[in-house]
């Protein structure tokens, strides 16, 4: 997946001289995950900008560039380190168009590796997507395949609105797949049906797609037909895809690795409890991380796995 991201950046930069990158260690070092490898050489230090160690500065200056009309793509080294720039995101980036009566669009893309699974402990593992999905004015995108990573990132860079582009670092290298050539875009705001099914709907995204897929596949043998929806864009949510699936299956399991309490799954459950109530035949199950910080040595106990997802699906399907 990380090569797909690299390709998307290269494609966008080649296509439009006003696309530029900024962040820590993205230049000569090529990014700590190598997402920007080779781009400094290709596009020069005016367009691949190694910044001082300040997320406030990275995001604040990216906003200024966007106000002026450029298309900056900021990299935050780990999502866990975005908080020094959080004020610029929620107070400024998300609200510029609105507060100026539409005079100042602010199309910054913030890319950041996020999530667990690399033994990163409390500060290299968190999934705090809800801070951003709850913030009106931001779009929030999470790819789960190389093709989507490339296509969604290209859409994000040329989107008129600010986009938080959260990259599930655990599958940077683990997940491979075909990637179309050139400026092939995947639309923001549309979920992806990973597999069709009629007994239960499973909603997941990012690094939870592989274990969710495993769980669904393994249940086939037991005669359970699970539909798996990769939400892809967390905000704005593709509500009709969610409702459409549950109207068909009558049952839902939501999966994410973030903490459960007020996590993203709560919104999906709430939408269903509100708008698909009469279709629902069973409680809405949430398979999530725990309501703790992210642990180091025991991270495999923390992260939802295929077995936990499978158990939840079975329980949901068997519920009266």
């Amino acid at each position, binding site marked *: 997946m990380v090569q797909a991201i690299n390709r998307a950046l290269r494609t966008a930069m080649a296509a439009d001289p006003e696309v530029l990158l900024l962040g820590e260690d993205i230049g000569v070092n090529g990014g700590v995950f190598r997402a920007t490898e080779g781009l400094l050489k290709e596009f020069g230090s005016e367009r691949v900008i190694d910044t001082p160690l300040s997320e406030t500065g990275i995001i604040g200056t990216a906003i200024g560039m966007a*106000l002026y009309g450029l298309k900056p793509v900021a990299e935050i080294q780990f999502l866990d380190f975005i908080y020094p720039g959080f004020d*610029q995101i929620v107070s400024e980036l998300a609200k510029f168009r609105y507060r100026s009566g539409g005079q100042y669009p602010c199309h910054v893309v913030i890319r950041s590796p996020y999530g667990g699974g690399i033994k990163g402990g409390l500060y290299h593992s968190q999934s705090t997507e809800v801070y951003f999905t709850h913030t009106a004015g931001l779009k929030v995108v999470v790819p789960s395949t190389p093709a989507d990573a490339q296509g969604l990132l290209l859409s994000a860079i040329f989107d*008129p*609105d600010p986009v938080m582009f959260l990259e599930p670092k655990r599958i940077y290298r683990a997940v491979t797949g075909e990637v179309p050539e050139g400026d092939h875009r995947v639309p923001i705001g549309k979920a992806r049906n990973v597999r069709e099914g009629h007994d239960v709907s499973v909603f997941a995204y990012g690094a939870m797609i592989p274990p969710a897929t495993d769980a669904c596949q393994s249940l086939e043998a037991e005669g359970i037909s699970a539909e798996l929806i990769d939400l892809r864009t967390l905000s704005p949510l593709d509500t009709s895809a969610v409702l459409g699936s549950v109207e068909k299956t009558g049952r839902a399991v939501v999966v994410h690795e973030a903490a459960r309490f007020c996590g993203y799954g709560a919104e999906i459950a709430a939408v269903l409890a509100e708008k698909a109530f009469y279709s629902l035949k069973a409680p809405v199950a949430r398979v999530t991380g725990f309501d703790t910080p992210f642990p180091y040595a025991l991270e495999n106990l923390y992260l939802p796995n295929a077995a936990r997802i499978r158990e939840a699906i079975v329980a949901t399907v068997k519920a009266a």
Partner: protein
Amino acid sequence: MPLLVSGPVATSTLATEIAPEDLPSIYRAMVVARALDERCLTMQRQGRIGFYVPVMGQEAAQVACAWALEAKDWIFPAYRELGLALVRGVTPEELLDQFFGNAADRLKGRQMPNHYGYRDRNFVSPSSPIGTQITQAVGAAMAARRRNDPIVTIPFFGDGATSSNDFHAGLNFAGVFRTPTIFFCQNNGWAISLPRSRQTAAKTLAEKGAAYGVPGVVVDGNDVHQVFRTVRGARARAIAGDGPTLIEAQVYRLGPHSTSDDPRRYRTDAELAEWKQRDPIGRLKHELVDAGQWSEERDSQLLEEVRADIAGAVQRSESVGAADPLSFLDDVYATRSPALEEQRQQLEGWIQTGLVKL
């Protein structure tokens, strides 16, 4: 006081001193600012506008600074920048539309008074959180340079804002990337109730520039000439590619922090009285009178004229209707999301049935 701590000779051809014939116009802008302040403070007490932040006392620094810039330079204001707005050609009526948040307000009634922005005047739309415009101005300067636009960006902020995260990051990035940015700090002595002396143990705010390799300079903000000259110098330096400058304009906030504030709780009458004597409007008036460019008579005439103008603007602005009730659901994104579309329809229904009211 040296104009700039360092930097080569300016290459800009702009004059380094105010043209004498411009002084009456500068004076007029200051008078308009003061009159509008007074009018708005009254209207706030009468409940006709919700809130107001007076500029009172900082007119010289702002007007002279704006005068030294070119119209294409990007201003990143805070919430106390009436003097700048007037020089940029924003009319009292436009401002009042924003204060009333009415249907003519370019911000569609979304922001509190004083948070106006005008893209066509290169006057960026501010927020309330202190300091955030500083890094943004640096980013815009980097963008301008990338496009080879010979402009400067100039964030305005107060003494309190020097403690903000964005001051630190903004000056640091500007120093590292040598951006064409003028950091214009209006040190008005107070951050609400906190005096400058307790904001930081540094001797001056200008000397903070050294921590970032950015030259810093202190100016008497009540002296239009010194302000103009310093800004022109910094601008020339920036345009020549020699990087940013931090200017500390020492002024005084003669009024309350805002209409929610009572400065008698934290500062003495004596201090206020002392600064009233240095009121920049009186000072420039004396200078003009001494130079034979002005008289008490013309002054009263000007004041009357300005007040009448403002009264007319208030009348027109106050009679404009309220903002479109559905408009607050726009501009969250470039196009409405499905959820916002649904919420808009809901709201429309609620308004029709009287469930919600303005």
